[in-house]
């Protein structure tokens, strides 16, 4: 589904590379966790996959379902089935949450040549999904992420994820700022989305999230590349030893 080969990325206008030859293969149905200390390049990877401006791809390739992902605009990537649950969801004052979601859903449908959803069907589906994720209906009318608590913003991302049903979900530190209860509901929402034809990349600092969203593969990233890969047990090992214990000085060297 997703093949990243020798990817090298730097910030536009800055010579220092952030990602230095990153490779990853993600197959349908798999959940990959990417862990790493601050500044290891995890979030940059997430943004590059979603097509954010401001990065320069200096080498390597990314293909998604046979398409050259780097050629696509962010909205085309979304239409192809990529979704990024952001670490810092953006506020859009004056735009109601439900209106935003419906615009997004219909834009995706239109791009895929499918009929748009009616207002009634949309609301029905929205209510059902919101209930699963523990989102109150008053949420729908509130402005997108405006005045939301950290936990509410993350839940909202998961609601979007559930409504837009992407093929590849990228969760960028979805656990940061969540208390235990919220972590559980958010994880339940994500787990409900797991299916044989959907893949996930879960980016996190801590092993904690992986107790709830159990990965098939764990990759430890430091200083722009994957330093170690393994099964879910790698996360426990990491929890015990710490990044430095596991990887040696390269982990510390990357601390920004």
């Amino acid at each position, binding site marked *: 589904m997703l093949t990243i080969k020798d990817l090298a990325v730097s910030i536009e206008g800055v010579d220092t590379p952030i990602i230095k030859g990153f490779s990853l293969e993600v197959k349908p149905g798999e959940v990959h966790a990417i862990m790493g200390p601050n500044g290891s390049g995890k979030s940059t990877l997430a943004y590059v996959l*979603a*097509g*954010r*401006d*401001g*990065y320069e791809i200096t080498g390597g390739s990314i293909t998604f379902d046979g398409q050259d992902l780097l050629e696509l*605009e*962010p*909205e085309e*990537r*979304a*239409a192809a089935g990529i*979704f*990024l649950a*952001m670490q810092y*969801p*953006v*506020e*859009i*004052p*004056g*735009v109601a949450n439900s209106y*935003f979601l419906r*615009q*997004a*859903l219909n*834009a*995706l449908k239109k*791009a895929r040549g499918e009929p748009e959803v009616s207002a009634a069907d949309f609301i029905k589906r929205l209510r059902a999904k919101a209930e699963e994720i523990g989102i109150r209906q008053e949420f729908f009318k509130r*402005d*997108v992420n405006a005045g939301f608590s950290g936990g509410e913003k993350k839940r909202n991302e998961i609601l*979007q994820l559930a409504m*837009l049903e992407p093929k590849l979900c990228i969760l960028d530190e979805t656990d940061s700022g969540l208390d235990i209860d919220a972590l559980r509901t958010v994880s339940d929402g994500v787990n409900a989305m797991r299916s044989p034809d959907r893949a996930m990349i879960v980016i996190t600092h801590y092993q904690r999230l992986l107790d709830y969203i159990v990965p098939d593969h764990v990759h430890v990233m430091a200083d722009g590349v994957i330093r170690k890969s393994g099964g879910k047990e790698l996360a426990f090992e990491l929890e015990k030893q710490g990044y430095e214990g596991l990887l040696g000085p390269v982990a510390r060297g990357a601390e920004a």
Partner: protein
Amino acid sequence: MATALETVRDYAAKAYKYGFSTAIESDMAPKGLNEDIVRLISAKKNEPEWMTEWRLQAYRRWLTMEEPNWQKVGYPPIDYQEVYFYAAPKVRERPESLDDIDPEIRETYNKLGIPIKEQEILAGVAVDYVWDSVSVATTFRAKLEELGIIFGSFSDALQNHPELVKKYLGTVVPQGDNYFAALNSAVFTDGSFVYIPKGVRCPMELSTYFRINEMNTGQFERTLIIAEEGSYVSYLEGCTAPQRDENQLHAAVVELITMDDAEIKYSTVQNWYPGDAEGKGGIYNFVTKRGACRGKRSKISWTQVETGSAITWKYPSCILQGDDSVGEFYSVAVTNNAQQADTGTKMIHIGKRTRSRIVSKGISAGKADQTYRGLVRMLKGAEGARNHTQCDSMLIGDKCGAHTVPYIEIKNRTAKAEHEATTSKISDDQLFYCRSRGISEEDAVALVVNGFCREVMNELPMEFAVEARKLLGISLEGSVG
């Protein structure tokens, strides 16, 4: 992947959708302006003697006045001798019914998306159509007449209700009020007239659709709305013009009057041709709009969505004479490419406990420049008067400008005025967030801007809010990439 900023520079302006012109024979007066032209216009309209005199008085005042230059907009001097002050579609007679309207005009309104017949039937909105300053059709007249409501062209009102016109004309905006109002008073050719009798709540939106068609013509319409005691009316005007390389002048005057407990809600969706991306052509929209809350507890509310015109220069205002009267001004002004706008309002508090609210949302893109200019004046007798002003500007790109110039004058110790202002930029983060959910960049801009303007858009009548929302998107097409 270019940043929003880079693509602002790359994009050329999208074509103006309403820029076509219609080949139709016009009855035009010679170019230029003198007393004979004023008399000619008056004679063409078969006006009473006092009206001709009133026009001439205005013309003589105008000759002594100087074109103002305090506003923050720039344009080359206008040669008033090169303008046609009268252009009317050559119709056999004034149409008796809608079916008599020239098919070409009918077709044009169809292209604009407002088929005359259908609009009447489907929307239940009474519409008056003004073509190069002359009213060509009014729908729903009969139904309104049953309620005693007078709605139609200004010319008709002058023929059928001269006493009402004479009583109120120029009482809110006097002939010599300002340079363009004086010019309008001398040469106005038509416009809309509305009279709502005592205690009547007008059951439908009244609407006038203005269209400039001829080259080198000015459009000078005059609108007068009177709401008698305890009455209510909601009125909307829409405007478009063909795409031409020359600048064209639109100098309208609108006067509103509310008696005790009456309310007028006046909404404008202005989409005159804005000129091309380089600033060639476009309408000069120099308009005087003013309402007088004469009665106690009366209310006048202005809502405007200004997306068109090369230059917009207008300040819909309220004179709050009656105790406890209320004035409101809700504005969205969008300037893109080389457009300029200097707009705002004046709230003059005279009566006790008068209240006013100003919400202005300015959006500037391209290399456009925009100024909010607002006056809040509370006179000595304005015991306990209140004002709240909120001015928000949004910038798109790094070549545009937004300016806020509030004037506050308070002569009464118990009166209070509050002013809030913000300036924000549409952020790359917001656009990326929308795009990563599948929303195209242009739709994302429209979405964020509509969110920014929501408070004002909510004030528009339902039927027009949808249209206005689309218009905002269209006006900003190509402003980011």
